[in-house]
């Protein structure tokens, strides 16, 4: 009996080490740069000469305009995806029709296409359409890669919704449109919020789709980061900019997981 107890203990220790290493490595992606953003000095140096908050103010002029563009694009993409995605999710969950599976697969299609191929395609026709370096050009590029996440979240919300509530409203004389806005929409709210937040997080951080079609007028933060790294290497100011990007993303992720609920993370999984 003693040996089985020992085996169990060894098993527990191995599990503990494995989980700790995995979680630490994944969080390191965030914490290394966050930690570095407080270093004094202008070059990469361990151990640091000291700690300071100055790095967050010294990048004001260059980084914050780019950050503003990314925030705007993230929010606009969320709104645009809601407008196109909610009705589509409604039709796909409420009705049975020929070709439904095909349309369903088609609408989740952007996850099956490499972003680099899609971005190259955009580069081929955006100049002719005058959409290089424009708000709408970037918005459409971000929307196409985030739409599947919006659709999955909203569809799972519609699937969980009790249709009896809608039927009751219509029996009592509400029109179809009125039922949708007063009954259905509030009830699928969490699913829409989850889709909106996922869209925001991905659009806010997207890099591949943007680097082919951005320009000096519309230069989002992710591309700004790459340009900085390319020119100056890793500096504390750069680390501060990355830390801000990640803190914004974490805030959204936290709302998604804690406030709206973990079940809507199904939108992420395949």
């Amino acid at each position, binding site marked *: 009996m003693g040996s089985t107890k020992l*085996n169990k203990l060894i098993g527990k220790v191995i*599990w503990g080490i494995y*989980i700790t290493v*995995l*979680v630490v490595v*994944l*969080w*390191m*992606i*965030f914490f*290394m*740069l966050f930690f*570095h953003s407080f270093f004094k000095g202008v070059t*990469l140096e*361990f*151990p640091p000469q000291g700690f300071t908050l100055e790095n967050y103010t010294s990048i004001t002029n260059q980084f914050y305009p780019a950050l503003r563009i990314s925030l705007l694009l993230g929010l606009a993409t969320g709104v645009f995806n809601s407008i*196109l*995605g909610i*009705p*589509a999710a409604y*039709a796909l969950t409420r*009705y049975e*029709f020929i070709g439904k599976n095909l*349309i369903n*697969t*088609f*609408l989740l*299609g952007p*996850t*099956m*296409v*490499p972003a*680099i*191929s*899609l971005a*190259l*395609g955009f*580069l*081929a*026709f955006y100049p002719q359409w005058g959409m290089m370096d424009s708000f709408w050009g970037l918005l*459409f590029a971000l*929307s*196409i890669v985030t*739409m599947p996440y919006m659709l999955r979240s909203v569809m799972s919300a519609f699937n969980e919704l009790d249709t009896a509530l809608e039927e009751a409203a219509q029996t009592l004389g509400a029109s179809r449109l009125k039922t949708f806005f007063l009954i259905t929409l509030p009830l699928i709210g969490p699913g829409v919020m989850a889709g909106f937040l996922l869209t925001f997080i991905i659009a806010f*951080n997207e*890099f591949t789709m943007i*680097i082919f079609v951005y320009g000096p007028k519309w230069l989002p933060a*992710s591309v700004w980061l*790459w340009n900085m*790294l390319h020119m100056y290497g*890793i500096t504390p100011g750069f680390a501060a900019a990355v830390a801000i*990007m*990640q803190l914004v*993303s974490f805030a959204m*992720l936290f709302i998604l*997981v804690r406030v709206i609920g*973990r079940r809507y993370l199904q939108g*992420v*999984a*395949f």
Partner: protein
Amino acid sequence: MPTKRKRWLNIVIPLAPIIVFYLIFLVYPIAALGYHSFVVGEGGQFGLQNYLETFAKAGFRRTLGHTLLIAGSATLFDLLLGYPAAYYLARRQNWIADLMQLSLLIPLYGGLYVAFAFMLVLLPNGFLNSVLIWLGLIEKPLSLLYTRPTLIAAFGIYGLPFMVYPLRAAIQGIDPALEEAARTLGASGWQVLRQILLPMSTIGVIGGVLLNFGWNVAIFSIPLVLSFKGAPFLSLDIYFSTRYNIRWSYVATLSTILFAITFGLSYLYMTLVKPARSNTA
């Protein structure tokens, strides 16, 4: 039959805008590139000449081989690293599982950040070398950053969720009673893994490998930051070919090859693995 026509409209009106949007911004760009890759010369005839020319180049074959090698190694790395994580997520529901799930979301949107973190840790004057020198374990900084194992690890961490989610779904479909029964009858942990878990989660392993490899092949941001001379990638080749004087027939061919790999593997997953999984679960 007014009600019948109305039902028809109820389906078409909500779906039409999104389908038009997809046709313009998803189908058209991909199809246009595919078309360009098959057009030969000025006359506009169709042919496989662009592909034959591309494959005839030793440089392209090396790039393709290297891309597949790194992507494949990262998939293997993810399978080994991700299986225990998937098992834990499938079987436990506690705060550790919550934390793990949240952690897995970090790489999902931030390929660029994964690359930055690797850079900061592994640079000659970076975190790891400084700590090792301070501890007196090494005298000169190790050159760890621009190496293939680093590329594989960075790819692996970025693509980990695409391995863990299909595996978790497959393991969730296995009745825990089977493991307990085997345990009661005296099977060791290794035997349970070999004889129960692995055979019954084969569909998850296949699904994870398809999704993960398809994703790895086309990663762009990580090689852009972490790649070095002698480590070519298809995605980088596409990007740098667009910087000056684009030869559309060439980049369209490269992009269509990449598209075919990723789309083919994802489509296999969608049509074979996913339905099989929902039947058993």
